[in-house]
């Protein structure tokens, strides 16, 4: 009944036609993180091809979509030119909106959120603020304690953020996009 429903949703959002995949496995063969994933990319394609909700949920719950680095080696070599990275972007947003994130995603999402927060407020990346926010999100206070002072000594860390002038513009962009999406899904 709702068979293929999610898959067609994916196609309309990303233009990726999962049925084009003929399971040659070349994406997996060249993926640098395939062995760390619950489902390597070609296997994930097969799960999508079944079109069942059960398999779709498996994907949304998996760490595969979070470990994908979007390095695009798979797309570069895919004989059918299937845009797996684009699909991964979409699956990540679905996983968040359906609240099905794999535990492995926590630090990754925390990092992304801290990163975006920084941009929202200053327009540019404030690395010290990013690290502080990331640590408070993940409770990883001890991480990178050894490299931070070194970075400071090498002149790589600014203690104060750089700010753009039109910060209101940034806020508006965020309000119209990611924050808008959040309220929609709630």
């Amino acid at each position: 009944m709702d068979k293929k429903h999610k898959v067609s949703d994916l196609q309309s959002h990303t233009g990726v036609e999962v049925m084009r995949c003929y399971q040659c496995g070349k994406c997996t063969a060249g993926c640098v993180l395939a062995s760390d994933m619950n489902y390597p990319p070609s296997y994930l394609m097969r799960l999508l091809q079944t079109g069942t909700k059960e398999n779709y949920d498996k994907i949304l719950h998996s760490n595969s979509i979070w470990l994908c680095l979007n390095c695009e080696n798979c797309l570069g070599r895919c004989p059918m030119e299937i845009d797996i990275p684009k699909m991964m972007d979409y699956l990540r947003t679905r996983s968040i909106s359906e609240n099905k994130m794999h535990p492995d995603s926590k630090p990754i999402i925390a990092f992304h959120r801290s990163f975006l927060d920084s941009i929202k407020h200053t327009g540019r990346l404030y690395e010290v603020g990013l690290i502080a926010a990331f640590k408070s999100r993940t409770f990883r206070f001890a991480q990178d304690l050894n490299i931070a002072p070194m970075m400071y000594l090498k002149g790589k860390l600014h203690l104060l953020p750089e700010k753009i002038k039109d910060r209101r513009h940034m806020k508006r962009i965020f309000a119209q996009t990611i924050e808008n999406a959040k309220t929609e899904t709630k």
Partner: protein
Amino acid sequence: MKIGFYPGCSLTGSSREYNESVVAVAKALEIDLVELKDWNCCGATAAHSMNEELSLSLPARIMALAEEQGLKEIVVPCAACYNRLKVTQHELEDQPKRNRVAEILQMPYKGDLKIINVLQLLEAYGTENIKARITQPFAHKVACYYGCLLVRPHAILKFDRVEDPQSMDALIQVIGGTTMDWAFKTECCGGGFSVSRTDLVVKLSGNILKDASDRGAEALIVACPMCQSNLDMRRGAINKTLDSPIDIPVIYITQAIGLALGIGAKELGLKRHFVTVEL
């Protein structure tokens, strides 16, 4: 020669030496870099992992600003920013997406800005010009590391060849260096996982360093701040996973060219590296 310049966040922070070397080399080659006013972050991996519209709007603002400031062409040294801008420009060829982004930005966007990376800037400037100004040939055997974002997706970037690219190798050869055929030219270093999944970055960057080192590279040459920081700042963690530590430096193409042009190490930011540069 006058050209727009978008440094991006990394170049003002953790990768200042890239900025310094780009500026120094441009000055030496008499290229006038005009920095984009009031530029913002491109959103990097975070934005397109989290929200598509945001990931398009942030780069679109940068390009709209450039258009507004009358720039026809901008050089984007950071490979990640270069990639985001190029991909966004491609995505916005789709009219509904373009309309939506224009609505979010409240700014006009034409989409005809020419976006180039540092290698293209140096190529365009002409290898002959660089050759003519060499004072100290860069006589080193090095491995050119391109990473992901400079060459993929090939269909959109249309830069160099997708496997085994050559443009950086050609520049190194111009300044008297020796390049090598090695296996990890375009394999991913772990990119944006530097902080969130350091373990994976250590594994992937370790593979890259090991192959280059095994083949006798004296240095890795890069054109991406993310690659540089993973391969350089994470070296301590990487070396812990290896049988024997690797101490070859990771330098930017602009630093290598700067050295050949006789620019001082300090001016090129070579003192800022974690792994000591002795070239």
